[in-house]
Structure formats: structure tokens, C-alpha cells
């Protein structure tokens, strides 16, 4: 097969993995964001909660994501009671395990980013909201969250890119996203450089689109 033909065929095959890569990213980032918000609120509001959150962040940021994925996929199946539980159909699926591990991992990083955002909210803004008679929830919704999110957005953009890259580890528990397909093609053809080039272009395009979207959101939300 000619060089150009090979590149074209490889590109087409790899593009078939894009929906899975994007799906894993969006799913885990959405779940991770909700979890991160809960963790950040827990940390800010109770002493034992803060202790739990810092332990959670310590473990998930201090160990490799690959170990976390393997632990959820293989480790949980060791026990008969897990295999008998209603959770087993989900924990048996590599897709669910990858999503769960990615979301838990993302939540640890994102909650720290959000904490930085909370810390940057000016006290005067909160006091003004209270003086105007806002309830805690309204204060959070109208004052604290918009300011904190705007402040945290640049760091969160980096975390999103890290998540796109992290979805590649799902290929090690049999999911055929872009990196999984790339590995399969390399082991069939032994043309690592060409395959890397094609897969690299796909990841760079995804990350470029993401960077632009975050930048557009930053402009929309106004200066930090």
C-alpha cells in the first residue's frame, strides 16, 4: 500500500474512535464537575467533610490514573458480594468502569481548582449580597458561583485537555477509542510513526477546539 493510501485508511479507521473518545470525555467531565462542586461545598462547610475531601484529593491526585482504572475494573470484581449486587452489570462493563474512574479522578483535580476560585471571590461581594438580604442558595447562585467559576476557568481549561488525553487509558481495559485503534493498527502494520501522526492530528484538533471554546467562554463571562 502506498504511503498516502495508508495514511488515508489509517485516518478513517482512527476517526471511528472519535465518538468514544468524545463520549468518555464529556461523560466523565460532566459527572466530575457535579462531584467536584459537591466536594468543594463539603470542604467549605464542615470540619469532618473537609478532612474527607482532603483525603480523597490526596489519594486520587497522588496515584496513577491507570491504577485507579484497573482497581475499579479488576479489583472490585474480587468479591462475591459485589458480583452478586445490582451494581455488577455496571462494574463488569469496561465503559462504565472507565467513566467512573475518569470522573472520580477529574473530580479530585476540579475540586481543587474550584477551591481556588472560591478563595478568589472578594469578601465585599459576599457581604453586599448578604446585606441585600439574599438567602444562602441565592448568594451561591448569583454571586459566589459566577465569580468563582470565572476565576477558575483558565485552570479548568487545562484540566479539560488533560481529561481528553486521559481517556486514552480506557484502551488498556479493551475500549477501542482513538488510542486503542491506533495500538491495534500499529501492532498489525508496525508503522508506528504514520499511525502516531494521524492519531496526533486527531487529538490536537480535539484539544484545539476545546481551547477555543474555553477562550470564547472566558470572553463571554468578562474579565476575571
Amino acid at each position, binding site marked *: 500500500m502506498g504511503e498516502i493510501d495508508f495514511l488515508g485508511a489509517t485516518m478513517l479507521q482512527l476517526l471511528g474512535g472519535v465518538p468514544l473518545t468524545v463520549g468518555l470525555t464529556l461523560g466523565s467531565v460532566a459527572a466530575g464537575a457535579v462531584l467536584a462542586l459537591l466536594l468543594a461545598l463539603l470542604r467549605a462547610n464542615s470540619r469532618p467533610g473537609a478532612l474527607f475531601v482532603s483525603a480523597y484529593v490526596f489519594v486520587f491526585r497522588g496515584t496513577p490514573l491507570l491504577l485507579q482504572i484497573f482497581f475499579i475494573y*479488576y479489583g472490585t470484581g474480587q468479591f462475591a458480594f459485589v458480583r452478586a449486587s445490582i451494581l455488577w452489570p455496571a462494574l463488569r462493563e469496561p465503559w462504565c468502569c472507565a467513566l467512573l474512574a475518569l470522573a472520580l479522578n477529574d473530580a479530585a483535580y476540579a475540586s481543587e481548582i474550584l477551591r481556588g476560585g472560591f478563595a478568589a471571590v472578594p469578601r465585599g461581594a459576599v457581604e453586599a449580597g448578604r446585606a441585600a438580604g439574599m438567602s444562602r442558595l441565592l448568594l451561591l447562585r448569583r454571586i459566589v458561583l459566577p465569580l468563582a467559576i470565572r476565576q477558575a476557568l483558565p485552570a479548568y481549561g487545562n484540566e479539560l485537555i488533560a481529561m481528553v488525553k486521559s481517556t486514552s487509558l480506557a484502551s488498556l481495559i479493551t475500549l477501542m477509542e482513538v488510542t486503542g485503534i491506533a495500538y491495534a493498527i500499529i501492532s498489525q502494520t508496525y508503522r508506528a510513526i504514520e499511525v502516531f501522526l494521524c492519531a496526533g492530528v486527531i487529538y490536537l484538533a480535539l484539544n484545539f477546539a476545546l481551547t477555543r471554546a474555553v477562550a470564547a467562554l472566558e470572553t463571554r463571562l468578562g474579565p476575571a
Partner: protein
Amino acid sequence: MNSPFVLLGFGPNGWGASLVAGAAMTLAVSAAAYIVGLALGGLAAWARIAGPPPARRAVGLYTTVFRGIPELLVIYLVYFGGSEALTALGHLFGGSGFIGLDGFLAGTLAVGLVAGAYQTEALRGGFLAIPRGEIEAARAVGMNRLLLLRRVIAPRALRFALPGMGNVWQQVLKESALISVTGLSELMRAVNVASDSTRLPFDFGIAGFFLYLVLTSLSGGVFRTAERSLARHERAS
């Protein structure tokens, strides 16, 4: 069934020795990759700050590409691409058959290549954080370029870059787990082998978490000590 003490111990039925050896290998391959990354990052940051425009563009391309592509893919590129190149080179010298690249070497190069891209940004940030007045003052008292670099730029840039450099180290340590795909028996692979042989992936997963946390927190402490020591002349803020 064996108790955890036997399983994780150092006896004939224990996996303790192989896990500790794995942790040592993780530390060794991470250190090697970090040194490669530091050398690459230092050169690239220098080219980015003081090089001609084409060199700056090349560095920009390098950091964009290797910070935007999954590490696993880079490991595949270096491991399989390197073996491909070695085999071709072997044929050139009349050899036949397949020559594989060593997992340690491939992992070091791949992780080092990625770390270098992040290190470039950390070092450049450190340089840019030096107050211009300090460099001007050094020039005004007549320091030549080398003395300026040794006495002012290097120590001050290091002081500002150190937190970022510590982050790169943590990242390298965790990414080294991906080198297990080459078959190198570092900690992740030791955990997998023990899990498969004993069918106790939960127990050995926990042991893996524990050992990685020991590695990341101990080495994090080293970086924090270094930061304090470099900042010791500064006013407390």
C-alpha cells in the same frame, strides 16, 4: 487462603519483595525520564527566550504537540517506532530479524519527551517572573553574560520555576505507570502480575495505592524543602 501478612510479606509466598523492587524501578525510570525532560526543557526554554524566530516556532510546536497528545500514544511511538528504526538499522548492517527497544530506554525517552514540553513552560515562566530591575542592576554593575546567568538569572529563575518543576516531577512519577505496557517491571506491572497470579486484584490494588502515595508524598516533601530553602532570603509575605 493466605493472610495479607503472608501475601504482602517477604516470604516465599509473599509479593512484598517484588512490589518493593517495582517501586524502586518506578523511581529509577521516573528519575531518568525527569533528567531527560529537564535537559530538553532547559534547551527548549533557552531557545524560546533567546533563540532566533525559527527556533522559537519549533519550540512552540514541540510544546503544543507533546502537551496535547496522550502520553500512552507517545510511548507507543517511541517503543514501536524505535524498534522499527532499530530493526531497519540492523538490516542495514546485514542482520535479520526483529530488534526490540528496551522498555526502560523507550519509557525514559517517551516520558522524558512529554515532561520536557511541560518543563519548558515551567522554566520559561520562572525566567519571566524575574523582576527586570534585577537583571538591569546586574548589567549596570558590569556583569558579563555568563556571570549574569550564573549569579542572577539561574538562581532567581530556579526559585520561581521550582513549584512548576515539582508538578512536572509528580506527573512523571504517575505517568511512569504507563511504561508498564512495554513490559518493564515497574510498580504498576508488579501490581498487575501479583494480582493475576493470586487473583486478588483488590488487595494488591490497595498495596499499589499505598506505595504510589509513599513515593509521591515523600518526593513532594523533597521539593517543598527545596522551595523553602531557595526562598529563605525573602521576606515572609
